[in-house]
């Protein structure tokens, strides 16, 4: 509603205020298309928002959930990514546009045959041309894929694993192999022996890839391993909480142990 009101107001101003008596019809403005990847994603989000508004105004019948972006709309965005790919050989966008296609084609509940084909085309180039690219590390840890193509995505990753000579990418595979153990551990599902085994595997990861960077984070594997082992051994239920000594939001120093004698709910939060 809000945006409609704003639109009405700006049109009214643009037409010279009340003097303009023409009926206010939303005209299809010929818009300059922003032909960067950021531009594509901006337009994608705009379409998403517009569709949400449409659905709020006239909700679909009960039990029917419509996708926020249709397959045809997504194909339009994918086509724009291909255009970027075609003109960016040797540029960072060459990789990024392909990755964006994988992501767009993986929108849950939308992917049909057209998007699946685009996913395959992009994956074929990505997973053969960039096996030694640092950016592949994140992609093998989290590979966007339509539900039906998860198996193909795994096969693509296995192909990279066999071929890559890049240390960051190799490290990513070792890291990925520990993910299910790590998530069981954070849910408290590992017994002492299993935790011990996980600590051993983590130490090995640190030995092999210490200086490399962990995907999606700012830390090195050496730091990651240190922190994770600390968490396993010191942050488990029943252990005395490690102390925290830092500044509050006004820059005044305090410590977690200041609250000894009280029950503390320690809340990791943020607005972002």
């Amino acid at each position: 509603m809000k945006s409609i009101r704003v639109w009405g107001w700006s049109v009214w101003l643009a037409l010279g205020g009340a003097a303009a008596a023409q009926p206010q019809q939303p005209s299809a403005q010929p818009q300059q298309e922003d032909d960067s990847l950021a531009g594509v994603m901006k337009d994608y989000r705009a379409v998403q928002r517009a569709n949400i508004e449409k659905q709020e105004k006239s909700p679909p019948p009960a039990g029917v959930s419509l996708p926020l972006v249709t397959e045809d709309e997504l194909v339009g965005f994918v086509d724009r990514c291909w255009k970027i790919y075609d003109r960016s050989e040797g540029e960072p966008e060459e990789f990024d546009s392909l990755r964006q296609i994988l992501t767009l084609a993986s929108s849950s509940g939308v992917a049909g045959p057209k998007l699946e084909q685009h996913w395959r085309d992009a994956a074929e180039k990505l997973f053969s041309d960039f096996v030694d690219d640092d950016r592949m590390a994140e992609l093998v840890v989290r590979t966007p894929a339509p539900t039906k193509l998860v198996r193909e995505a795994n096969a693509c990753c296995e192909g990279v694993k066999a071929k890559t000579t890049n240390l960051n990418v190799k490290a990513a595979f070792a890291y990925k192999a520990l993910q299910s153990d790590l998530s069981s551990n954070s849910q408290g599902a590992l017994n002492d022996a299993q935790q011990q085994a996980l600590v051993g595997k983590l130490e090995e990861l640190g030995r092999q890839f210490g200086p490399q960077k962990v995907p999606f984070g700012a830390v090195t594997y050496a730091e990651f391993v240190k922190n994770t082992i600390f968490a396993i051994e010191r942050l488990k239920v029943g252990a005395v909480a490690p102390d925290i000594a830092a500044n509050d939001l006004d820059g005044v120093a305090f410590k977690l142990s200041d609250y000894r004698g009280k029950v503390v709910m320690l809340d990791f939060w943020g607005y972002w």
Partner: protein
Amino acid sequence: MFPHERSLVERLKDAPFALVGVNSDADLVEQKPKLKEERITWRSFWNGPEGTSGPISSAWNVSGWPTLYLIDHEGKIRQKYVGSPGDEVLDRELDLLVSAAKQAAAPKPVGTE
């Protein structure tokens, strides 16, 4: 999350309880006004300019937001939640811990003077 946190702080204001935050916004200046708006009165450590990759959340291996730890009066970790477990669970667990803390703090029965 904030409304329940506010009501917790209010409800347990006379109990041996403290809500301590670790705030992971990279930009403090930007969020200061919001603290007032949301009536966030409890104290928070600041995780530093690296935001969610800051030193405290890294040391505590925080992988999801919010992450909550319930710590008893002896400083021992009693519960850990990645994502809120829901208001009811939190209320129940905290009440248990608070009553244990009260018991520990109660003066020991003394004999005759």
